[in-house]
Each structure stands twice: as structure tokens, then as C-alpha cells.
């Protein structure tokens, strides 16, 4: 009883000892904040990485791909049974995209992905990243009239509205240009006949006409350069199966393509420092894509596609390189379509696993099914693809945890010192207690109990502080931005402007248990010292 009483009284009369606990408190709070932010980052990153990737991929690098995907699909279904939630076939290949902007042709390397729009959504979250609300429901690779992400001003106008307007402008310029050409032709014709008519030169009229034609030539050049500015030279129309009919770009589209938002836009700041997107490709523009066909050796083929939408997975790696087109179009263009069996070859089969299925064991059983020695396909999970990045983040979290725990351990030494001081200060009282018959164990438990109490109070306050910090982290970040004048999360670098946090109750539990444990460990030595004190010497202590 005296132990509890004294513990309590020591705590009450020595609040200053809490100062030593504050270090533990701060450590605990920091640990919670760091862990929840790191977990937030990790889970966001995993969401994004996983976003447009399926769980498992059976893929081949063979130029002509997997010729009989249905045979593979059957075997996969047989092997994995109920754990298969969705399955789709995909053609992926490296490609080069060319588009025109401000009169210049730009080329960019992309990953062209042919997808089956009806089943692709069953293996990945792809459709939720599309910009047009209708496409989020069901992607159909058809250009919409308008309504692409209305909240993005930079993207307006786009769709048919934009396309027909551009075509109209092009046509207007074309006709104007035509008119000037005709005019010019007529003038030069007239000049020719004039010269032929009267061979003797009339000085005054010639100079007059020369100036006139000069002005007309200038106008022509002006018109041409205007046209360049608008959208580049007219694109060579390719007949998509239409026999000899002239393609009218203002009402017709080419095969649809969905580009990553990073391919078609840049994010930067304007003069006032506001974050701004600039789109140099919009839904409604045509782009030309060169890719190898399935022949051996492969030959490059060139196709025109109409951008029908963008997707934004917020993984810059995906957003900057992936372009999606309908699989059939790609199969036909590459010569992967077998007209007899009506089956197209694919380069990969993507599988979504049912909830709760172990990713690695499913992958291993598929690897078992298609051993490298017998087949030419590889089986990978999305984690394998992003393995190094995930491992790096994991390592970072681990190192941070170790470092912060070191800090708490350092704080533990602070407590150790404080407790030693308190034991020294209480030497006489210890002697008194011993003279009153208190056993060493009882005296030790006074100081141990004191440590437990302080540790609990400290880590309790720390947990509350940490949670409050995490809860208000974005406000705190804003205050920091205001004080330091620099942005904590630059939205041109990161895709989010709020700090993602995830609080795992388990983290809080082990962190606070750890802190209390450190306080207890730090009080063990002083307690033992107190218990071992010689009663007479303790009584004599001044």
C-alpha cells in the first residue's frame, strides 16, 4: 500500500520528472506521425501502382505473341479455379507516337496496349481513372461530344466540339488558301497574256503590277503560316476500310485511343505561381502511331488514331507512357488475327484474383503450370513489376522506424538519469523505509511503479499528441508553408496536395507499449540501486 501511496506522491510532487518523459512522448508522437504518413504514402502508391495493372500477368515477348490465348485461359482457370475473379487478353508493344503541336511534329515513345474494353475493367481499376464520366461507366473508344472533366478548364473545349471546330478552321483556311492560289494563278496568267500581247514594255504599269503580285504572295505565306499555327499541315487521310471515300475529319473519327494524361499535357506554374495544366493534345485530336507488325523481321506500320479520352492514374510512370487502343484494331493492323479461327494472338493474359487470394502462391502455381523450360510465357505479379520501388519504400519505413526508436531509446537514457537523480535525492527516505521494515523488493517496486506511471502518462500524452498531429497534418503543413514560404508538397511534383495518412491501431499499440517498456527498463537500474542501498548509510546520507 505504501508503495502505491509513495509512487503517487512522488509523481504528484515531481511533475518535473515528466520533462524527461516528454522526450519519450515526442518520440512516440513522431513515430506515430511518421508511420501514419508513410503508411498513407505506401497505400496510395500501391493503389496507384496497382490501379491499371492486374494482379497477375502471363506474358510473352514473342513478336507474334500467344497465338491461342483461349487454351492458356482454360489452363489458368483450371489451375486457379475459384480464385480467378476476372481475366482478359492484352496486346502490348512499344510504339512511337507522333503528334503536331504549334506547327512542329513531336514524337514520343509510348507503350501501346490493346485492350478488350468489355473485359479489361474486370481485371483493373482502369476505367475509374478515365476523364469522361461515360467512359468511367463503359469505355467504347468513341469520341464524345463534350463533357471531358468539366472541372478542368485547361481541357476545354474537347471532344467533337473541339474537333469539328478545328476542322472547320482548317477547311476555312484551306479554301482561303485555295482562293489565293487561284487568284495568283489567274494574275500570272493575265500577266503572261499581257506580255505576249504587247511585247514593248510599259514601264509604269509593270511596276504597278509587280507590287501587286508581291502583296498577294505575302498574303499567301501569311495564310499558310496561320494554318501551321492552328494544327499543322493537313493529315494524310487513311481509309479505315472505306473504299475510296474521302475521310471527313469533322464528322468522322479514326480508331479511338486513350492516352495517359502525362503524354498529352504538362503541369507547370503560371506567372502568379498558380499550378496550371497545359494540354497540347486534346480529346478530338488525331495522333499518328508507328509500331512493329508481327512479321519477321518486324516492319514498322503507321496508323492514325483519334484521342477519345485521357486517363489519370497519378502514377507518372503509367500516365506518361501507356496508351490504350482496342485490341482487335491492333491485332488486325499487326497481322495477329487468324481469319480462319477468328482468334487474335495476344502478348499477355491478365488475371484478377479473388479477394483474399495470396498473390505469390497464385503466381507460383501458374509458374508451375507454365514452366520456362516448356513454354515461352512468363508469369509475374504486379508486385514483381513494381518490386524495387515497393522494396525501397519498405526499407525507408523500416529505417525511419529504427532511427526513431533510437531516439526514444536516447530519451530512455534521459529517464534513466532522472530516475537515478530521484533515487539519490530519496536516499534518506529509502533508509527510513528500510528502518521501518520495508523490504528491498518493496522499495524497488516504488521506483518501478513510478517509472511505469511516468511512462504511461508520457506515452499516453504522446499518442494523443501524435494522433492530433496526424488529424490536423494538412493544416499544420499549411501553417508551415505560410511560415517558411515554401510548399511542403509541390503539386507539380506530387499528384496530391493533401498529405495522405493511414493510422493503424496496431502501430499505436506497439508504439505505446514500446515507450512504456523503455520507461520501465530505464527505471529498473535505479530501482535495483534503491533496493540494494544499505539502510544505515542511507540514513546517514546528507
Amino acid at each position, binding site marked *: 500500500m505504501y508503495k*502505491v*501511496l509513495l509512487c503517487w506522491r*512522488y509523481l*504528484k510532487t515531481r511533475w518535473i520528472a515528466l520533462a524527461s518523459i516528454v522526450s519519450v512522448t515526442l518520440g512516440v508522437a513522431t513515430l506515430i506521425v511518421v508511420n501514419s504518413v508513410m503508411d498513407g504514402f505506401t497505400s496510395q502508391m500501391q493503389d496507384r501502382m496497382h490501379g491499371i495493372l492486374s494482379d497477375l500477368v502471363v506474358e510473352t515477348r514473342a513478336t507474334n505473341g500467344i497465338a491461342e490465348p483461349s487454351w492458356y485461359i482454360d489452363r489458368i482457370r483450371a489451375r486457379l479455379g475459384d480464385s480467378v475473379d476476372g481475366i482478359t487478353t492484352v496486346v502490348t508493344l512499344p510504339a512511337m507516337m507522333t503528334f503536331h503541336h504549334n506547327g512542329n511534329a513531336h514524337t514520343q515513345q509510348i507503350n501501346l496496349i490493346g485492350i478488350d474494353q468489355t473485359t479489361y475493367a474486370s481485371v483493373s481499376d482502369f476505367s475509374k481513372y478515365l476523364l469522361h464520366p461515360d467512359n468511367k461507366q463503359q469505355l467504347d473508344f468513341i469520341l464524345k461530344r463534350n463533357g471531358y472533366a468539366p472541372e478542368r478548364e485547361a481541357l476545354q473545349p474537347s471532344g467533337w466540339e473541339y474537333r469539328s471546330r478545328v476542322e472547320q478552321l482548317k477547311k476555312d483556311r484551306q479554301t482561303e488558301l485555295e482562293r489565293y492560289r487561284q487568284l495568283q494563278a489567274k494574275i500570272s496568267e493575265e500577266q503572261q497574256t499581257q506580255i505576249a500581247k504587247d511585247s514593248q514594255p510599259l514601264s509604269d504599269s509593270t511596276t504597278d503590277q509587280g507590287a501587286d503580285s508581291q502583296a498577294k504572295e505575302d498574303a499567301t505565306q501569311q495564310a499558310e503560316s496561320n494554318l501551321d499555327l492552328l494544327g499543322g499541315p493537313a493529315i494524310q487521310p487513311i481509309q479505315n476500310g472505306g473504299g475510296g471515300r474521302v475521310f471527313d475529319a469533322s464528322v468522322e473519327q479514326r480508331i479511338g485511343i486513350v492516352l495517359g494524361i502525362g503524354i498529352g499535357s504538362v503541369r507547370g506554374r503560371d506567372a502568379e505561381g498558380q499550378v496550371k495544366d497545359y494540354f497540347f493534345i486534346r480529346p478530338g485530336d488525331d495522333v499518328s502511331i508507328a509500331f512493329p507488325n508481327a512479321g519477321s523481321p518486324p516492319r514498322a506500320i503507321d496508323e492514325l488514331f483519334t484521342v477519345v479520352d485521357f486517363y489519370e492514374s497519378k502514377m507518372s510512370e503509367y500516365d506518361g507512357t501507356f496508351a490504350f487502343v482496342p485490341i482487335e484494331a491492333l491485332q488486325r493492323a499487326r497481322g495477329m488475327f487468324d481469319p480462319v479461327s477468328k482468334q487474335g494472338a495476344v502478348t499477355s493474359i491478365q488475371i484478377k484474383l479473388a479477394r483474399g487470394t495470396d498473390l505469390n502462391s497464385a503466381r507460383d502455381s501458374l509458374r508451375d503450370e507454365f514452366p520456362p523450360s516448356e513454354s515461352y510465357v512468363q508469369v509475374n505479379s504486379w508486385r514483381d513489376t513494381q518490386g524495387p520501388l515497393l522494396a525501397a519504400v519498405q526499407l525507408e519505413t523500416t529505417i525511419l522506424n529504427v532511427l526513431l526508436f533510437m531516439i526514444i531509446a536516447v530519451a530512455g537514457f534521459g529517464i534513466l538519469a532522472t530516475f537515478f537523480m530521484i533515487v539519490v535525492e530519496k536516499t*534518506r527516505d529509502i533508509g*527510513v523505509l528500510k528502518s*521501518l521494515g520495508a523490504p528491498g523488493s518493496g522499495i524497488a517496486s516504488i521506483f518501478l511503479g513510478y517509472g511505469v506511471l511516468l511512462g504511461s502518462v508520457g506515452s499516453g500524452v504522446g499518442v494523443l499528441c501524435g494522433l492530433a498531429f496526424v488529424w490536423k497534418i494538412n493544416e499544420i503543413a499549411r501553417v508551415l508553408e505560410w511560415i517558411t514560404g515554401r510548399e511542403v508538397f509541390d503539386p507539380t511534383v506530387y499528384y496530391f496536395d493533401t498529405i495522405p495518412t493511414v493510422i493503424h491501431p496496431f502501430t499505436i499499440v506497439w508504439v505505446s507499449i514500446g515507450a512504456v517498456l523503455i520507461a520501465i527498463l530505464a527505471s529498473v537500474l535505479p530501482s535495483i540501486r534503491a533496493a540494494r542501498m544499505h539502510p544505515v548509510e542511507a540514513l546517514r546520507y546528507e
Partner: protein
Amino acid sequence: MNNSTPAKSLAKPITSAANQLRVVRPETDNESGHAEKTHSTSPQSFSSESMVDARGVTKSYRRHKTSVAVLKGVDFSAEHGKMTAIVGQSGSGKSTLLHLLGTLDRPDSGEIHFANQRIDNLPARKRDAFRNQQLGMIFQFYHLLPELTLLENVIAPAMIGQSILSYFRNRSSILKRAKELAEMVGLSHRLNHKPSQLSGGEMQRTAIARALITDPKLLLADEPTGNLDQESGQSILQLLRNLNQESGLTIVMVTHDENIAMQCDALVRLKGGKVERLK
């Protein structure tokens, strides 16, 4: 002031704890029973009436490899129900002897007996319990616990001697006894004061009340009046004498004051590490 009735009233709650101490308890709890017993095994003849005695006790302190012999074969005995004074020059080893009698320290050689039971070689637990149950100690510098109130200081030994459970079971009787003792030492109106708010004399009275809470057989006092003025010293002494006469409490008191020493039943002087009996 008060008589032995409060002592009897507390006898019940502490018996369970005292049972563990059967070794050190006299065979009879009865106060008149001591006369029949004689200690036959002892080589020296000690009076059966002795409450506590030291037999050939030596004690030396080592300091920087040189050993200082403080007690060089002390034979000392305090009789049951008597008040024994120890005098001697400063540094003669009075406190040392008292600590040995109170099992706070162990002699280098020789034996300490309490009610004819050897106590100096008991295991630490038993000595702790012995101090708690059989012994009251008061010191020159009072040695109260500064964090506790007067009342809490008084009941501290009772709390130490009992588990939380039995403390709560006996709480009311312990508190009643503590209040009686506070009344006896004349401090019942200051129960909730901290030691820092008390005068020296009041602190010493509190220390006496604390020493008596477990109803001990023996009170060891190390210069209880050493830090007090004449008047409060006298009143403390009066208190101790009353306890001795009315409750038959055995008291061993170290003092510098010849006057006080002369008033005691027995008087010994420590000199050159030996004991001289003066009275």
C-alpha cells in the same frame, strides 16, 4: 497521558503478520511470562529479563583500506520494561550499536539477541519483518517522509507490514490507532499537515507515534532530543518515560545529555569500543 489499552486494541490486526515472526517472538505474549524462562544454551549468563542484548559484538568500518574498529567486543543488555541510556563521546559508536541492535546493520562478530532469540543472522526478509513488527526507532533528525502527511507518516509502518488487501481490511482500526497515538503525542489537530509544516518537536512526536503504531516491544531512540531546545526536549522525554512506565515499553536511548541519562533506569557508557556499566 495514555495507558496500554490502545496497544491491546491493535494487537489483533497485526497477529497474522506477527505469526510469520514466530522465531523472534517470545514464547509467551504475556507480559509477566518472561520471568519463568532462562536461556540455558548461552555460554554467558544473561538475565532472562533482558529484552535485547549484544554479546561480544565487534564492528569496524573500512575506509581507504584502513579499518577503523568502532566496537571492540561489546556486551550490552537492556532489560525488559526498563529505560536504558547509552552515553559516550561523539564518534564512540553509540549510533553504530543502536543500528546493530535494530538489525539495520550486522556485527562483524558476536551476536544480537532479542527476547533470547538470535536476530543478527536472520535472513533479510525476517529482519525487515522484525523491524516492522517488534521495533520502533526514532532518530535525532526525525526522518519523516516529506511527501506524506502526519497521519500517513504515522500509519506508514502498518502499511509496510501488510498487503494492500489486509491493509484495507484493517484500515479503520489502523486509522483509529493512529489517531489515538496522535492524540497521545498531542498532535491530533495537525493530522493532514506535511512534515515541512511542523516544528522539530512536533516532528519528533510524529516520529514517536509512527514508532508505536505497530505496538513494538522495544523502542530504540538515537538522540531524540539532540536537535531540540530544552523545553521540547523535556516534553519528548516525558512522553518516553510515560510510555515506559505506563505501557512497560522497553526503551534504549542514546543521549548526550547527562541529566537525561541519570534519570534512566540503567546507564552505560561507550568508550574505546567497550561498554562500561554506570548504573
